[in-house]
């Protein structure tokens, strides 16, 4: 087990190197001259040269790469080009709001999605099943933007049930007043695709031979579904949660933008609009690392859910 984890961490190195190269390639090479981006309307060549020197972009590429790697290892990406705030500080302060929104979203969406999906899979082939699937397809076709715009207008502006947007210093106030609307909205929007996906997992399992065996034992259909099928469907469900998990760190940048939640997603988006490269670079590299570790975690979890898996 320990050996397996070490081996997996060892195997991450080439992937991580690839990520670093990709990011470096994008921002230091394709991104053109960051000094020009920063300097904006300043046309004075001396000033530009000055900025270039400050940012280190006049150095050869190999040296810039070395600096980049050093930044990653020391967790020190310097300061934001736009606000001069320390990049590490930006992420530490923005993480809280993002998780406040995204953790409940992930939990609620998964739990409600799985419960509804079992129900729908249970009545597979009936009119109810087809109606629910139809509603899901239509619901998924409406742009996320429309949901947010309308919900914000309706529940925030017109009905006044929730504040239109905002965030406070008090955690409790955030959870009780500012977070509910974005959370409910995200869960609602995410439910249709989750339901469709989980339903397909259950249907895949229902067609297996062991379900026939379970029925031939005389088990009630409810037990067949909730014990035999659910236990097997947990495997793909776990995979899916593993895929979604890294997402909770970046959050729904749309929700954060619309509802003025000072989270990581909004910060990255602002950085993209301002060409604030250090922030984007740091976000990308660290989230890639987090993703890799979550993947490892999920693979270890497989061992718990699926006895056929051997960690080698």
């Amino acid at each position, binding site marked *: 087990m320990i050996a397996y984890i070490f081996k997996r961490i060892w*195997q991450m190195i080439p992937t991580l190197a690839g990520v670093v190269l990709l990011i470096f390639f994008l921002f230091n090479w394709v991104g053109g001259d960051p000094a020009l981006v920063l300097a904006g309307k300043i046309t004075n060549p001396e000033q530009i040269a000055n900025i270039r020197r400050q940012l280190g972009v006049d150095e050869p590429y190999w040296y810039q790469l070395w600096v980049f790697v050093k930044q990653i290892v020391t967790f020190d990406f310097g300061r934001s080009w736009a606000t001069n705030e320390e990049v590490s500080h930006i992420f530490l302060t923005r993480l809280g709001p993002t998780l406040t929104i995204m953790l409940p979203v992930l939990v609620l969406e998964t739990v409600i999605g799985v419960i509804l999906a079992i129900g729908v899979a249970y009545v597979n082939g009936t009119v109810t099943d087809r109606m629910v699937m139809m509603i899901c397809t239509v619901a998924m076709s409406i742009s996320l933007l429309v949901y947010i715009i309308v919900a914000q207008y309706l529940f925030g502006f017109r009905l006044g049930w929730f504040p239109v947007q905002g965030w406070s210093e008090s955690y409790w106030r955030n959870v009780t007043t500012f977070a509910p609307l974005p959370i409910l909205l995200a869960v609602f929007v995410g439910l249709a695709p989750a339901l469709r996906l989980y339903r397909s997992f259950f249907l895949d399992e229902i067609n297996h031979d*062991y379900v026939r065996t379970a*029925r031939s*034992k*005389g*088990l009630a*259909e409810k037990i067949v579904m909730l014990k*035999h099928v659910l*236990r097997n469907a947990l495997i793909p469900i776990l995979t899916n949660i593993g895929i979604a998990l890294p997402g909770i760190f970046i959050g729904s940048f749309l929700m954060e933008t619309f509802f003025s939640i000072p989270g990581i997603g909004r910060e990255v988006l602002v950085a993209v609009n301002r060409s604030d490269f250090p922030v984007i670079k740091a976000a990308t590299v660290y989230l890639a690392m987090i993703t890799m570790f979550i993947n490892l975690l999920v693979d270890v979890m497989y061992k718990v859910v699926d006895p056929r898996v051997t960690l080698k």
Partner: protein
Amino acid sequence: MSDMDQPLLQVRNLGIDFRLEGGTVFEAVKNISFEVPRNSTVALVGESGSGKSVSAMAVMRLLPRESAIVSPASEILFEGTNLLKLSDEGIRGIRGKEISVIFQEPMSSLNPVFTVGDQIAEILSLHMDLSRKQAWRRAEELMHEVGIPDSALRIKSFPHELSGGQQQRVMIAIAIACNPKLLIADEPTTALDVTIQKQILDLLASLQERYRMSVLFITHDLAVVGEIADHVVVMQHGEIKEQATARRIFEAPQHPYTQALLSCRPNVDERPMRLPVIADFLGPDGAARIKREQRRRGYEGDDEIVLEVSHLSKHFRLKEGIFKSRDVAAVKDASFKLARGKTLGLVGESGSGKTTVGLTLMRLHESSGGEVLFDGVDLLKLSEQDFMKYKRRIQIVFQNPYASLNPRFTVGQILMEPMTIHKLAAGNRECIDMAMALLERVGLPEESFHKYPHEFSGGQRQRIAIARCLTMKPDVLICDESVSALDVSVQAQVLNLLQDLQDEYRMSYIFISHDLAVVKYISDQVMVMSDGDVIEVANSDDIYLNPQQEYTRKLLGSIPKGWQGEKPN
């Protein structure tokens, strides 16, 4: 005691339709009636699509609800109760308790994420009102009873940790756990090796004796039926063709289809020039036309050797981690000779390496050692380019007729591809002519040229695969389980075709199969393999009459003997 007189199970006027896509209906079972008496074994025999499994699943009410329609006139009486009229709850009380079932694929029939102990204990606590602890103790006893060694240890195993035979034993333990009156066995040994098959059949017979239950045994294999059944029901295309006691079926079959089924299957005791096929029995004078002339087989001193394989070996490298890997030997040091116009049979159980031999000597797998002399040239040493010339002279027909033809090619394209690759014909016209001639030779109509593989049956597809090989006029044809997936009647036709082609073109065959009877019938020499080792090579009659090795004896002893007269009891 009055209900002891009536049969345990009576199936009356059972009709089952399946709704297919596009609104068509397929009549899977057409108004059949049969009975299962108490304490006896009834065999439901038929080829694929005969409706035998569907009928058995109807007894358990396990047919898919969305697509299967059981006709309203149908009755399935179990101890006088019509199972079809029972409530859902009622049938659940029958399932597993009164009637239980074992399936063909034990691996997929067991739930992969629960231990076998869990799965046996589950049914015990459901029907027998046992506590969890009692259920587990009883489960362990049952595992011991079905012959799983170390049952105290094995009870905590997951299905994938057991061998195929042990998995099927677990399925049997589940099935007999609640002492059912009827056991439905749906092709329980088809997926298993012949030695395991024998063990499972013996186990079933002894359990039936001990628990005094009836068995409804579904199979395509008449040899197995002959060993176990008291009554036989022969089905074809959803209809019952004949039902009678086993003695009558085997000694005086009435229906031509039964007669055909009984004689088109090769059997170890004789070797007719040509296997009888169903068509032989349908004419007015039926069985009379069957020729009883026997064929002589075996290598002789003056045989010309086309292919000489010596010390062939093949290791597969299993990756374990990034740098480590482990070699697994699939074939160890195999040597044999193949004579022109003769057949070498390769037999062995799954994992014996017999298929690997075939694939390695024609370089579909890279070899790990040894040489393959063909025309005096070592094929394994040739460069890819030089080997191209020899490629067409050794060809292969695979097992699965549904996977061996490219579904996006027409039959014409399939046949002409090798001609264009090897430039075997002068022009397009000649290509078509050759393809047409070959189609005729393998017994397919001319229109087949423009059709796609999905329009053909399994046997016809195998003919197409054979025709594809014939385009290259190979010297050696490797038949890798080529008839194993086919129904017996079709199997006989394809075997006859192969024999005719060998007589005509003097091709040499390497005939790879797990089916000992078929290998005996078609082979001049037989090579027995086990775990990658060659156990024994000899002329086929010698091997079957006088096996030298213990393993060979065990293998041959496991072949179902078929009808040997009334069971002694």
